[in-house]
């Protein structure tokens, strides 16, 4: 286990050290201490390493992640795992707004609650939230899966494309062009896999599925808001 004191050694040194780790590196286990809410921790990683951040992070932790596992042992600020391509990001606490924004792949697990705009414009990422999510989540979400074990706030899935949304609790309101859809066996199977990946003990049958009504895909004056 390599330990990195962020307060003493600085952000530039941390990220450049982590960027130097290639696929063949033996130094696969990293621990970052004293994060103190710093921004841009462990961004742009591209190696199968595991980074444990011992505390809470600021904006964009694990942004554009590829291959790596980043584990935040605290809460995460805005834009955690934004534009992630692959790998895994786990947040033990809560996540602020824009969690997993525009993510193309990989898995984001939030064990607490996520704030507004969770999964905004997601493009293939899988997001599993143990708690609740805030308003305007999955806005213009294009692809991937968002699983919410708690409740969802206002305007869920507004202007949704092809992303799949699964919510166990209540949905305060659905956004434009987002509707509840039938859960078929393939969805239950997918959901079971996602819940297992996210470490949730919820049952797939407890969830409702939401998706795009596809009425905004081509302009029609009668569907305009």
């Amino acid at each position, binding site marked *: 286990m390599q330990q990195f004191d962020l307060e003493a050694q600085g*952000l*530039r040194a941390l*990220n*450049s050290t982590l*960027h130097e780790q290639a696929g063949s590196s033996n130094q696969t286990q990293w621990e970052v201490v004293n994060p103190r809410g710093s*921004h*841009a921790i462990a*961004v*742009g990683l*591209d190696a199968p390493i595991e980074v444990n951040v011992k505390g809470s992070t*600021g*904006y*964009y932790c694990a*942004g*554009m992640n*590829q291959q790596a596992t980043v584990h935040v042992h605290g809460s995460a600020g*805005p*834009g955690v795992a*934004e*534009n992630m*391509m692959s790998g895994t990001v786990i947040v033990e606490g809560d996540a602020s707004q*824009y969690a997993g*924004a*525009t993510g*193309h792949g990989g898995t984001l697990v939030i064990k607490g609650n996520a704030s507004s*705009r969770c999964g*905004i*414009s997601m*493009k*293939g990422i899988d997001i599993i939230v143990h708690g609740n999510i805030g308003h305007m989540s999955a*806005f*213009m979400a*294009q*692809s991937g899966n968002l699983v919410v074990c708690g409740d969802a706030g206002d305007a869920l899935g507004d*202007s949704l*494309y*092809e992303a799949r949304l699964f919510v166990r609790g209540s949905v305060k309101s659905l956004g434009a062009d987002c509707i509840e859809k039938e859960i078929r066996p393939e969805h239950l199977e997918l959901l079971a896999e996602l819940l297992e990946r996210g470490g949730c003990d919820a049952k797939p049958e407890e969830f409702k599925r939401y998706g795009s009504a596809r009425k905004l*895909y*081509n*302009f029609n*004056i009668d569907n305009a808001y």
Partner: protein
Amino acid sequence: MKDDNHGIPRTVPIQSATFSNPINAEIRRAAATGIYDIRGGGAKRRVPHFDDLLFLGASISRYPLEGYREKCETKVTLGTRFAKKPIELEIPITIAGMSFGALSGPAKEALGRGASMAGTSTTTGDGGMTPEERGHSTQLVYQYLPSRYGMNPNDLRKADAIEIVVGQGAKPGGGGMLLGQKISDRVAEMRTLPKGIDQRSACRHPDWTGPDDLEIKILELREITNWEKPIYVKVGGTRPYYDTALAVKAGADVVVLDGMQGGTAATQDVFIEHVGLPTLACIRPAVQALQDLGVHREVQLVVSGGIRTGADVAKAMALGADAVSIGTAAMVAIGDNDPKWEEEYQKLGSTTGAYDDWHEGQDPAGITTQEAKLASRLDPVEAGRRLRNYLSVMTLEAQTIARACGHNHLHNLEPEDLCALTMEAAAMAKVPLAGTDWYPGKPGF
């Protein structure tokens, strides 16, 4: 003529200036369809522009440099503030962001070829970076847009600079649109969207709002790219003083300022014609902001929107820009709106010079299309050569003017080299009305 009015003269029919034929036609079109008019390009209305400025040239108080003989430098370096690897260009004229999707593959290749031959940069657009574009562009600026279509860290690292697009002159405050006709298999895959749908790009970034967030976003991008890449911030011309100041505060290396004549692939006509400032009105406030912050020339200013000639280049630089960027002019250079396609423009209900239905993907010139048959009409090698020639001519023209004003570098052009032909231009450019020492708003008058 038969008099059927008992000798009383008739009133001549008068067309309304307010309800003109084009206006009435648009009312009828709107009534029939229920949808606003969408088109490509920039503002077509007449606005104060560089044509309203003149250079004074040399005289007894200034002496000129010999054309062709004495050196007049054109090089510019962008990104000197923080980036480890600034972009070094042979000429201060860059190619603006235009997406693969909005433009065909051959058109993007032609832009890359022409820009590379001329020693300047080209820019991606909404939709990501294609290998062809990267391959044919020696200096490529990668746009970071609200949609994040195709955005990935591998391409980010391949770029020579990153341009965070906050807005553009044709539609400041608005997102992009690419209608279903142009969403081919490849475009759909690059944007992670179903084929054939109307694609909307968001009007604001999904994971930051405001200058304080932008500062952190820039930090993240710098960390991901090892602080190597120059980071541009592009804004539409709206509040140029404050936008420039805030971009500087957020840590930009370069500010790109796009006036309302700047083009777009597609948006509402009402947006293009009624939102934003003319390019001429943007430059002095932006330069003032840079000067007030003590970073003029340290943070470079790139101006775009209606740049057509070397005279426009020289005038923008005289007002304080470090470089300019061209989009529409580059498209014309490679063949857009060429008279040789007049018959086909007519079939599409348009005419040479007016064709702007770029969103429909039926461009006879093969530039704003994803139809393979149409796209194949454009020879990227020949079109690239035309762009190179055009960039060379613009540069020679700008050098001619600079030498005539006694300058050995385009960057040495200054507002004192200029006068204005109209009160509006004088006020916007803050240069004297021709033959006077006064402009509206000048202190002391």
